[in-house]
Each structure stands twice: as C-alpha cells, then as structure tokens.
C-alpha cells in the first residue's frame, strides 16, 4: 500500500515538472474576442510586425465571457466586452488601467466616443466597434412597413419571427415597445415586459444566436431582431433584405477593448490595442465584420455606400430614443429572474 502512495506521488510530481517545462520566455498574447469579429489575417500581420505570437479564442455573449473570466483557469490579455459589461467589470475591479502613452493611435478615434457613460476618457477601455439593434426583414415575405417593434407581435407573421436568445437584448425589445427605459430598475415594468414576451412566444419561430444570418438567408423566417453589422452582412449579398431601426427606440452599443487586471503581458496587450486602432487595420476589420467603426480615419476610407447606411451610422435625431445598456448592479437578479421565468413559461 505504501508503495502505491509513493507511485502516485511520483506520477503527480513528474507531471507537474512537465507542466513547468512547457512555459518559456516567448511572449504569447491571449486574445479573447467575440466570434467572427476580426479579419483574422490581421493577427498574422501583428505577429510578423512585432514577433509576438497570438493565442486567439472567441466567445458568443458577454455573459459567457464573464463566467469564463471569473471562474478562473484562463489568462486573457485582451478582451472585447460591451458597455454594461465594462461597467460591471470596472466596479468589480477586474480591469487594468490603460497607459495611454502606449496607445498613440488613440487620436484616430472620433472625439464623440471619448466621453461614454460607462468609461469616461478611455480610462479602462478604447472603442473597437459600435452598432445598433434593429429588425432585419425579407422584403419578399413582409409587405407592411417595418418601422416599429409592433410588427413582431403581429399575428400575421406567426412562426416567421426570430428573436435573440440573449437576456438583455430580448427584454429590451419589450421594454422599448412599452415605452420604458431598457435600464429600468422598476420591478413592475419588468413584469409587464415579461408578460409581453410570454404573449409573443406563440408567434416566435425560434430564439436564436449566431445562426440567425443563415436562417434568414435560407428563408426560414421573415423578420429577425439582429445587430446592425449582421444585417448589413446579409444585405450586402442578398438584395431582398431590409433593415429598420424601430421608432420606439432601441439599443446602441459599444464593444471596447480592455485589459483584464490579471493579464500577464500588459505591454504586448497595449501594443496590440494600438495596432488595432491603426486606420488601415481598422479598415480591414470594418470591411470584414460590417459594424460601425469609431475610428474617424477608418471611416473616411469607407465606400460612400457604407457611410450612407442609416442603420449603421444613424443621424442624431434617429438616435433620440436609443439607449446604451447600463449595468443594473444587484438589480440584475430581477432581470435574471424575469428571463428565467419567461424561458420556463409554456
């Protein structure tokens, strides 16, 4: 029996040695980004230019990213959370302050983005992309005018509607339709939004994630709630689609670049951020992902057709009823409860 214990100890010890050997001095930057959110050839260019290797991983939602970051076992140097998530991570002390002297390209960013509610003056984050949420519709299947969330509650389009399988985005639609703020901390308003979503359930074909583009292209549904970039991705290849921002207002959002507090390669991370803010690199990424760029020099390089996209670069008056998600703090429990109850409803 004693021998046995010894054997186990030896195995564990030798394994830990092996593990120890695998790390060496070469800098590898761990980048954690949304799926399909960068022109991946840019990563190779960065490695060629700086000699820093990149380990690139992706996540589907902010919530997935947060779970992975808080539950440990991962060591990311550069992450791309959205507005309300940055606010939350900031509150919880998960972010590292940026050294702006290492990011000279910051001057390329439009001044309008320097004073965003969740992070004023680029203290912890710099803008990567921004966009809106609206309704993508198939003109061959929809003959009404699409300019309001109401169409998603129209019996006529039963089983032809796709909603997002994402908590805040979907609750937001109901809140806006009811004329509430999407950052409401009023339980009654949330309950009403929940009832509205439950009432909509029989009309909805499915609650989907990244596959929404394919499903719309294949003609599985007529109407879908999508992010602006996805809509223009579909529309640039298929003429039968349109994209509308509802008049009741909607969400406009920012995905910014941050460095987590416990990142191992902060210097390389700053280099990478500066690289991404380069106008040329920004152009390649914008061209690939189709979202709105906050980089004014990149914007100037875009085609006029792209610059004129109302859903991507909306005028100020159109944005009047639009809001940015804020972190509801502990009130998130109520959002979680409402979402779970809505999901569990028959």
């Amino acid at each position: 029996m004693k021998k046995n214990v010894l054997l186990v100890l030896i195995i564990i010890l030798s394994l830990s040695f092996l593990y120890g050997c695998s790390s060496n001095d070469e800098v590898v930057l761990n980048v954690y980004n949304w799926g399909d959110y960068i022109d991946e050839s840019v990563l190779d260019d960065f490695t060629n230019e700086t000699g820093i290797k990149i380990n690139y991983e992706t996540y589907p939602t902010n919530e997935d990213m947060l779970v992975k970051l808080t539950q440990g076992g991962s060591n990311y140097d550069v992450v791309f959370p959205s507005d309300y998530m940055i606010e939350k991570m900031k509150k919880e002390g998960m972010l590292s302050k940026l050294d702006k002297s290492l990011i000279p390209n910051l001057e390329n960013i439009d001044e309008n983005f320097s004073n965003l509610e969740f992070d004023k003056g680029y203290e912890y984050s710099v803008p990567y992309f921004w966009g809106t949420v609206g309704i993508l519709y198939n003109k061959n299947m929809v003959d009404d005018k699409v300019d309001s969330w109401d169409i998603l509650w129209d019996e006529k389009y039963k089983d032809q509607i796709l909603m997002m399988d994402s908590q805040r985005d979907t609750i937001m639609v109901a809140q806006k339709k009811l004329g509430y703020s999407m950052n409401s901390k009023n339980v009654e308003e949330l309950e009403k939004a929940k009832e509205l979503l439950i009432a909509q359930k029989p009309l909805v074909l499915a609650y989907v994630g990244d596959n929404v583009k394919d499903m719309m292209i294949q003609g599985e549904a007529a109407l879908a709630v999508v992010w602006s970039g996805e809509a223009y991705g579909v529309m640039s290849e298929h003429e039968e689609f349109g994209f509308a921002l509802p008049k009741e207002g909607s969400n406009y959002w920012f995905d910014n670049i941050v460095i987590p507090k416990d990142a191992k390669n902060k210097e390389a991370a700053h280099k990478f951020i500066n690289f991404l803010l380069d106008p040329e690199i920004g152009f390649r990424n914008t061209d690939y992902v189709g979202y709105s760029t906050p980089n004014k020099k990149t914007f100037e390089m875009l085609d006029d057709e792209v610059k004129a996209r109302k859903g991507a670069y909306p005028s100020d008056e159109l944005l009047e009823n639009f809001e940015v998600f804020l972190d509801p703090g502990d009130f998130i429990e109520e959002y979680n409860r409402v979402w779970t109850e809505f999901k569990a409803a028959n």
Partner: protein
Amino acid sequence: MLKKYSATPYVIWSILFIVIPLILIVTYSLSTKNPINGQLVFSFSNYRKFLELKFINVLLKSVTLAFKATIICIILGYPMAMILSKMEAKLQKKLIVLFILPMWMNFLMRTYAWMVILGKNGFINKLLSMVGLNLNLLYTRGAVLLGMVYNFLPFMVLPIFTVLLKIDNNYIEAAEDLGADKLTVFRKIIFPLSMPGLISGITMVFMPAVSTFVISNLLGGGKEVLIGNLIEQQFLVLNNWNFGSALSVILMIFILVFMAFINKFDKDNDDKGGVGLW
C-alpha cells in the same frame, strides 16, 4: 493482495471525479453568494426559489417528454430487437453494424442534420410542397421528441436484443410442446425473461432524455425549455452556480427515485429466475 491493489486507480478516479464533484454540487446548492464579499453562506433559498418560481412545471414537462420518448422507444425497439434476435447469425451481424453505424458520427452532427431535414425549406417540406403542403416541423415539441427517440433508440434495442439472444430455446420449445400458442409463449416466457434488458433499456433512454439540453436547444429553438436547459442557463449565462446546483440536485434525486422504483421491479423478477443482462 493483487485484487486490493488493482482497485486503487478506480477508487482514486471515483473520489476525484464522482465523490468530490458531488459534494461540491451539494455544497453549492445549499448556499448563496454573499454579494458584498463573495463568500458562500449556508441557506435553503435555492430550493425555496425552485418552488416559488413554479419550475415544477418545467420538471414535469421534461419528465413527460422523456416518458413519451421512452414509450415510443419501447414500441419501436422491442419488435426490432426480436426481429434481430431471430435472424441467422451472418445477416444479424451485418444489421447490428448498420444499426450502430450512425453512432460513430457525432451526436451533435446528427441532431443538426435533423434541423436541415425538418426546416421550412428542408427535405420533408420540399417533398410535401409537391402536394402543396408546408408544415412547421422544426422548433416544436414534436421535433424535440423526435430528436430524443432518434438519438436514444439504440440504447433501448441493444440491451433487449442481448437478453433475447440469451434466452434458452428449450424453454420456448417446452412451452410449445405443452400446447402454448405463439402469443402465450411471448406473454409467459419471452417477455418475462426479457425484463432485465427492457429495464436497462428504459433507464438508458429515460435518464439522458430527462436531462438533455442540446436536443431541446437545437430542435426546440429555445422555445421548448426543459430542466436541462434551465440548469445550463444558470451555469453559463446567469452565472448563478448555486441555483444551478440546486436544480441539478433536484433532478438527481428525481432520477434516483426513478431508478429505485425500476430496480424494485428488477429484483422481483430476479426471484423468478430471469436471465441477467450481463
């Protein structure tokens, strides 16, 4: 000594990967996170929440659906196992391989394939459109049920088949000699002797069906939420491991009760001298 010795890796394995995780899940389920310092505090609130939020409905829905899937698997699987067991050896082997063949492919891929088949412009609807029909097949409860039956049917057929194969032909011949017709032979000899296979088939279909979340997610389109989906949401999206653990414990207790019930059946049968599965 050797016997004692050789069991140690398994003991270590079970402690590391079964006992410790179980203890962790139960601990999580019996506590909540203190919002101020993030420490775990003992509380029953997760279980109270389960009752308050009427999640009982979701549990019942999952059980009903899994139960239906099990029944369909028996209806489809039992005759299939009988046909297979009566075949001549060569053909039988080939058919068994054919039967298991789809399982060589990934379970997710096979479920995705059904999305293509059932979709609005999918294979079935293309055929139906020839007679001017278009049905909503995908993203319904029926689609989820189909996915369960399709994925778990082999787990019903194989154990029944193994048991049927082992039944001593002399019993059947003796019954026939004593004047029993085919139906009586099945009722009095074959069916009772195949009980162990049937029971293990039921457990092997019911258990994964009641806890699945992938099938309901893909074929139910996020509309058909089962207890497995609720658990997945708590862990991956809402970051509430405590409530998720409580849901898992409730499901585990439920399955345990079900197993105990089924095992009792099995025991009664053993006394009558049934054929063991293994």
